[in-house]
């Protein structure tokens, strides 16, 4: 180390001067240590919930009719736990550890670090309580209700201030590429979270999305896709570019490639979200744009993967003995596999087969268990001994974890790939007579149950591996010294009046070329970007700009150009009882198994009816298109079955079809509808644009009771059970019987329709 505090580019930088005094500083290792333990603990909880959900699909009786662990409530708990609790805590552990070292500076504020650590854990606890209770916004990976969303925003801002504060007082002039990835994560997640969660509260635990239908879908998948990109990809790439060279004890293979990798993700990834909505009611241009950008991602993603693997050049012999490197090698390989498969799935013709099937689930778990999980465990096994100032308790146990997790991962994804392709092909099969080869949806489900059972075994093994990691890391922590050694680091402060190197002169000087050519030559020499890399605020601003501008180009036309969502005169707002029923449907997480979107594909229209139109969803706050079909699509469910059929089916699906794996919702037959809250719900919906007149809002409870009495009578008339008046099942049936019928109704002025002439007709269903 020279007098300037560090070798390499910073000391060589002109303008830095020759500082006379070195700063002394101590890294905060308590925060990454705490985040590391939170990672493993919440990881085990999240995986355990996932295992329970997988068991319920393989053996429906496991749910035991308990509302809090019904699949629809459990799946959001699982996804939120593994994404925000497991992966979230993992990236914070990595960021707090590596940022300090890359900046040669302690975190800007110890208080903010503590606030971030405990605030984040409190948010996770709040999610773990509210999701099983059925408090949800009904948008995938953004289920948490508005008070928790606000808390997330506050904690994230505290994290951002602390992170950028650390960058601002760094003692290393050059910001290493990992910091670029972290910065992109911090700003992009903030933008995504805020805009996707804009909603109007109806009560403490109920709100309605500001957006409806197509617009809500576009916004949600802009969020959903980029949450994967900027929470599960960019921070883990930052982690990879820091921890892999550290573990391999050699620099990254190509720093040049890492820069291209970074900018390609910033410029390209943000556009790819609409590939989640192919063949839906989303405008064609948006869908095609999403596909093109997804395919463009192939190159940089594989460049990044190869860059990671080639970092181990000359160190491959260590992979066989170092569990950390084993985890990293498999993790990076799965990054390559998942980022190859992602663009493949975005190709429309492939997507037509894969969408709504378990293929997507297999793809997601290859990325989550393989990339996110293995990189996390590799990072923890490398970092924990260092922050605990001791050796890893057992390398053998870490190696055992590696092999158990690898076998578990394969046993998880392979059968689910098979299940997905089986579902896709069975759904699309047409027989010689031109009809569906498998008209009963349950047939296609029964065919994949054996794969679901193998998945349970794979998931159990992966969970067992995580438990071994917890034991190993806990034992490592137990071996820590009685008092941690206080390690003092030294580095020269950056000069406040740093003079950057002057821009180079044009190499074309003296040649007969126009001025513009000189300027281009100077630009090509890259002095401007070197400056940019040293200016964290401006750098972050440009990253934000790239993300926001790309998002606006994509989102604004769908929001503001009417031709993208043509109006359908016959589409009317839901009645007050249907709103109550829809809220129960959302609360139970029905969208986790049932889509409400019929694609313009022959087999699909034969099975479910006329394909869905953008204008049908203008009052859907939030949209409920879903992303997978464990059960059939419900977009045109209205009138397909009698009301009593729905009651019996909800009470216990297996009394209608013994092969069904849907949970029993028997409590809906005994639990009352919350009529008192209906006016507040209608008022909130009115604020987001549903044209309910004031009279309907004020009398919403009474209108709902009236329709409930009519539906209950209809159920009795159909030889169903009596005494259901005012029970939740009646509201849900009213909602289900309304689905998809407006397309065929007589055109009605929207406002007049806000006080609907309900029942038996609107509630549908023939005896």
């Amino acid at each position, binding site marked *: *180390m020279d007098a300037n505090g*560090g*070798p*390499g*580019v910073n000391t*060589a930088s002109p303008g830095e001067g020759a500082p006379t005094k070195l700063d002394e500083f101590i890294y905060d290792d308590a925060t990454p240590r705490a985040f590391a333990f939170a990672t493993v603990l919440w990881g085990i909880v999240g995986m355990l919930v996932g295992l329970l959900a997988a068991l319920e699909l393989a053996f429906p009786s496991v749910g035991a009719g308990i509302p809090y662990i019904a699949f629809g409530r459990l799946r959001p708990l699982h996804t939120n736990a593994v994404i925000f609790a497991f992966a979230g805590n993992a990236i914070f552990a990595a960021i707090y550890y590596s940022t300090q*070292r*890359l900046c*040669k500076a302690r975190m800007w504020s110890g208080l903010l670090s503590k606030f971030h650590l405990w605030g984040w854990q409190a948010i996770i606890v709040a999610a773990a309580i509210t999701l099983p209770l059925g408090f949800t916004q009904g948008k995938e990976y953004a289920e948490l209700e508005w008070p928790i969303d606000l808390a997330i925003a506050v904690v994230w801002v505290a994290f951002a201030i602390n992170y950028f504060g650390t960058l601002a007082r760094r003692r*290393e002039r*050059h910001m*290493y*590429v*990992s910091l670029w990835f972290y910065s992109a994560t911090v700003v992009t997640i903030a933008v995504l979270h805020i805009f996707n969660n804009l909603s109007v509260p109806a009560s403490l635990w109920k709100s309605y999305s500001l957006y409806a239908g197509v617009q809500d879908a576009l916004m949600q998948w802009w969020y959903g896709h980029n949450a994967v990109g900027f929470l599960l990809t960019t921070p883990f790439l930052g982690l990879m*570019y*820091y921890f892999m*060279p*550290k573990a391999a*004890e*050699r*620099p*990254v293979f*190509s*720093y*040049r490639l890492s820069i*291209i990798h970074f*900018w*390609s993700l910033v*410029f*390209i990834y943000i*556009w790819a979200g609409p590939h989640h909505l192919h063949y839906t009611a989303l405008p064609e*241009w*948006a869908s095609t*744009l999403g596909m*093109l*950008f997804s395919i463009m991602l192939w190159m940089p993603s594989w460049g990044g993967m190869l860059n990671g693997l080639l970092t181990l050049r000359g160190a491959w012999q260590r992979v066989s003995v170092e569990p950390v490197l084993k985890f990293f090698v498999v993790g990076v390989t799965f990054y390559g596999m998942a980022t190859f498969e992602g663009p493949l799935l975005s190709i429309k013709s492939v997507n037509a087969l894969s969408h709504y099937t378990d293929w997507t689930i297999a793809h997601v778990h290859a990325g989550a268990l393989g990339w996110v999980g293995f990189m996390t465990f590799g990072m923890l096994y490398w970092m924990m001994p260092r922050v605990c100032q001791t050796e890893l308790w057992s390398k053998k146990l870490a190696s055992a974890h590696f092999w158990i997790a690898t076998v578990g991962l394969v046993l998880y994804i392979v059968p689910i790939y098979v299940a997905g392709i089986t579902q896709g092909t069975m759904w699309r099969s047409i027989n010689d007579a031109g009809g569906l080869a498998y008209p009963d949806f349950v047939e296609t489900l029964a065919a994949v149950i054996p794969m679901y059972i193998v998945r349970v075994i794979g998931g159990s093994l992966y969970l067992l591996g995580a438990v071994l990691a917890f034991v190993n890391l806990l034992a490592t922590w137990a071996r820590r010294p009685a008092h941690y*050694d*206080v*390690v*003092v*680091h*030294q580095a020269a402060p950056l000069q406040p009046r740093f003079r950057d190197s002057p821009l180079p002169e044009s190499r074309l000087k003296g040649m007969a070329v126009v001025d513009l050519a000189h300027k281009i030559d100077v*630009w*090509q*020499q*890259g002095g401007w*970007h*070197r400056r940019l890399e040293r200016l964290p605020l401006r750098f972050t601003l440009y990253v934000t700009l*790239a993300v926001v*501008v*790309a998002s*606006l*180009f*994509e989102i*604004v*036309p769908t929001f*503001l*150009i*009417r*031709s993208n969502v043509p109006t359908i005169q016959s589409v009317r707002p839901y009645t007050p009882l249907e709103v109550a029923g829809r809220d129960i449907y959302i609360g139970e997480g029905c969208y986790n198994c049932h889509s409400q979107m019929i694609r313009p594909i022959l087999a699909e229209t034969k099975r479910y009816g006329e394909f869905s139109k953008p204008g049908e969803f203008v009052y859907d706050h939030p949209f409920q298109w879903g992303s997978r079909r464990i059960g059939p699509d419900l977009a045109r469910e209205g009138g397909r079955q009698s009301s009593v059929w729905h009651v019996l089916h909800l009470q216990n699906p297996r009394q209608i079809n013994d092969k069904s794996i849907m949970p029993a919702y028997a409590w809906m037959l005994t639990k009352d509808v919350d009529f008192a809250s209906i006016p507040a719900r209608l008022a909130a919906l009115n604020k987001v644009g549903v044209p309910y007149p004031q009279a309907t809002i004020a009398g919403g409870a009474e209108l709902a009771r009236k329709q409930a009495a009519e539906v209950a009578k209809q159920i009795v008339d159909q030889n169903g059970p009596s005494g259901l008046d005012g029970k939740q099942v009646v509201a849900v049936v009213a909602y289900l019987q309304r689905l998809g019928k407006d397309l065929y109704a007589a055109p009605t002025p929207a406002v007049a329709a806000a006080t609907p002439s309900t029942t038996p007709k609107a509630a549908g269903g023939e005896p």
Partner: protein
Amino acid sequence: MNLTDVMSNAGFSDFAKVGFVLSGLTFVGVVVWVVLRPKSEMKAHAGVVLDDDEGASRNGRQS
């Protein structure tokens, strides 16, 4: 006349395609610049990660 009317009648349907081209060109520019950077500079930057953890404990032990 609100913003939706303005946007709907302004022929902005190609808005996203323009964005596609602009974003693509900017990205190509960044790639060209990266490829032209001197090797020595890249090597120095890549080495930053391996030089960040040296220190001495209060009792003089090297970490």
